[in-house]
């Protein structure tokens, strides 16, 4: 299979790589770049563990090719912090025990930020509806909702 050249900005770092055209974003992140915080739970875009931010919106990295993102920018869970300072949404998940095993957590946090970018003051119902595609098998949903409510409030206040 012939390789193609792509340029992609991930977490503010520019990458220029030759890749196979069928390379999925999730495999590129995990296998090529070692960014293993983005997780794969189903391969069929049903669990949401693989979400990353693209144009401020959550996308499922198991269902998009790197080639489709040529000259574009994405952010993964590893890129949310500002140096050692957690993103307010990460901080809120910490403060509200919004994670148990942690496998779904990167996708949850990315999805929550994506929701905030669309709706900066979501109701509990809106949060639950938006997060429908993010599965948590620890079923820690109660604290996840709480984390997102507080994280959104914090993001609103910080502007």
């Amino acid at each position, binding site marked *: *299979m012939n390789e193609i050249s792509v340029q992609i900005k991930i977490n503010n770092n520019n990458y220029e790589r030759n890749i*196979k055209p*069928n*390379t*999925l974003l999730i*495999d590129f992140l*995990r*296998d090529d770049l*070692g*960014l*293993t*915080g*983005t*997780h*794969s*739970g*189903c*391969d*069929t875009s*049903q*669990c949401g*563990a693989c979400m990353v931010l693209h144009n401020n919106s959550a996308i499922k990295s198991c269902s998009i090719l790197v080639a489709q993102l040529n000259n574009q920018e994405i952010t*993964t*869970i*590893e890129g*949310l*912090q500002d140096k050692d300072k*957690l993103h307010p949404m*990460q901080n809120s*998940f*910490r403060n509200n*025990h919004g*994670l*148990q*095993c*942690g*496998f*779904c*957590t*990167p996708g949850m*946090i990315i999805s929550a930020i994506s929701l905030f970018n669309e709706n900066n003051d979501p109701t509990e119902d809106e*949060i*639950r*509806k938006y*997060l*429908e595609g*993010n*599965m*948590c*098998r*620890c*079923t*820690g*949903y*109660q*604290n*996840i*909702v709480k984390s997102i409510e507080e994280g959104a409030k914090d993001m609103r206040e910080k502007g």
Partner: protein
Amino acid sequence: MTKHDKNLKGITRREMLVGSAVAGTGLVVGYSGLPGAVGGAREALAAGSWDHQVFLTMDNAGIATVHITKAEIGQHVGTALAQAVAEELEVDWNDVRIDYPDTEEKWGFMITGGSWSVNWTFDRNSRIGASARIALIEAAAKMMGVPAAQCSASNSVVTDSVSGSSRTYSQILSTTTIDRTFSEDEMKALTLKKFGEYKVVGKNIPALDIPDKLIGEARYGIDVFVPNMVYGRLVTNPTRFGAVPLSADDSAAKSIDGYAGVAVIKEDPTGVNTGYVVALGETYWAAEKAAAAMKVTWDSGPNANTSSADIVQAAKDSIADESQGFTWVLEGDPEGAMSKADTTVEAEYETSLGYHGLMEPINCVAMESNGIWHLFTGSQFQGRFTAMTAAALGVDGKNVVLHQQYCGTGFGRRLEPDGAIISALAAQQIGRPVKLIYTREHDLRFDFHQTHTVQRVKAGVNSAGKIDAMSHVVAAGWATKRMAPGFLAESVDKKGKIDQFSTNGSDHWYDIPNHYVRSVENTTAMAATPPGQLRAVAPTWTWWANESFIDEVAHKIGKDPLDMRLSMLSATGKNAGTPPNTVGGANRLRNALIVAAGKSGYGVKPMPENTAMGIASVASQERGSPSWTAVVAEVHVDPSSGEPTLKKITVAMDVGTAVNPDGVLAQIQGSALFGSSRVLHENVTMTNGAIDQGNFDTWTPMRIHQAPEIDVTIIQNGHYPAGCGEPVVTCVGPAIANAVFNASGARVRSWPITAEKIKAAQRGA
């Protein structure tokens, strides 16, 4: 009945060594091999002869690392176990770390399950902390030239109460040699703090694992990469168990870019399964394509004609045949009392095959290097993984090391070493490291499912409206017999061994003078659906039957189900309870029921139309280690469609002492929804030996928008800490079914509880 009072009598048989090999190198705390066999802690460490269990290590900066031999599967139990040590060690919490060691004999028995972690280990870890503190105080007293008796420790500092001078733990550990042996009697005699005196235990300390999980730094098994590895992907066996590959033709796979070969395994001496075909690729993509292109001829094996209906029929037949199975409970004269009963009630309950549904599917990286096999994966039963992988490979168990990783959930699935064994066998065949990842379909179809169960319960009620006799037959696949036969229990009639972990819960805490429980192994289920342990295990089905049934009896004789339960919880005789685990006995269950009823507004709160509450209570997990739990479920049933909607769950749970209340709360909330999902949303079925469902489109657990409101009350009374990760799972099911009945008049006796079943029950079908 079960007797699980493990480790509650403190450290037994062995001495505790607290010492350092060389001055200023910190401290190691652990068991000695044999008492008196080594000169002491210092000598054993210096000679390198200390090869037994180590619990705590401190370095010369005063950092205390508590070694956690449990799997981190989301329960954050390492933090609670470290809190127990830190409380008695009087260490500054900022200096506390945890780690998850690789397998080695010195770490002892490594298993995670049964809601045992805190319950089995709290007392031991408290004593470990106390012994280290005493050794540190004695060393500091010697440094200061004062009697140890006038010194005390707090916040990593030892202070002489007379002069006021002090030494920090770091100062002690960076200068002196510590060499202290505590005899078994001395360990038992240690005075530990009591409830009310705690400074670290009982605090909502954020879990030490959380920061790494928030920033993508936590490493799960699936995140492991080693040089020169290939990806492995299973070619799907035609049946869940028993198929053997006869040949694999890879001629089409050879043209795939990155194809790296195929491992055909026709025999696995461990019996995890009967054969595998693993397609290998330089990339995951290549392995996936190669698996699809592989032409395999299979012998489908002996289960190719087994379907769910056969498993159910086998259970029913074994229940009807009274010669089958063994007695688990026999009190009074059940037959005689039943024949004299005023009213009898009888019902049959089923639970469906259950899928663990790990977020992170089964995976393992297996690699051989200089004669040592390395397994990188998350495991809930490390010793079983290394021993069985060694057996499969034909190597000495000492030459297999498991490197423990974080687990994207566990629920008992990671007690099973299939991922490790298959990846290792493939690596052995191909001569390269193999990273095997189950696809979601393989994870679902080749799970060690929770067994399908059928139970028949019968009660004889006397003229005073009391249940005088009860008989209960449990037919299930016996997971323990398959995976850990050493844990089978003697039956009451001494006629044979019973899988206690397929039966417990039926030995409940109600006053039933004449009580009989028979436990039967469903051999059809055993053969076709190798059963595993799924979160909350047997109490999931035994309490489902029991608590649904108590409600049915109450309705039949016109009593309120709550009143009926309370009237049978007198806490007398065998239900009086004994310290430490069951002190208070049935009174504690009674109390939990009253709290849950009160908090939910049971019988008081106005309910919308077609909405009702249902109540249930359990003493899970085992009779010897109960967490006293009551649940009230509020359910709406749509009158036209029959669709049930779970509106609210109210939980009251007496855990004695909550070591980390916030951690307990998270476990209770999660288990409430996990159990509700199991009962309302999840189903697994079998046709011709194969599992029908394949992914999250056909196996559809509860999602966030379907989750009800949850109200939790954690009851603490200072009694010994009980487990909290599972019991609520066993209580929500019957509470929901009882609420469905109260809302719709439909009694559903099998899982999942669906609109169709509700409508059918309403029609009297």
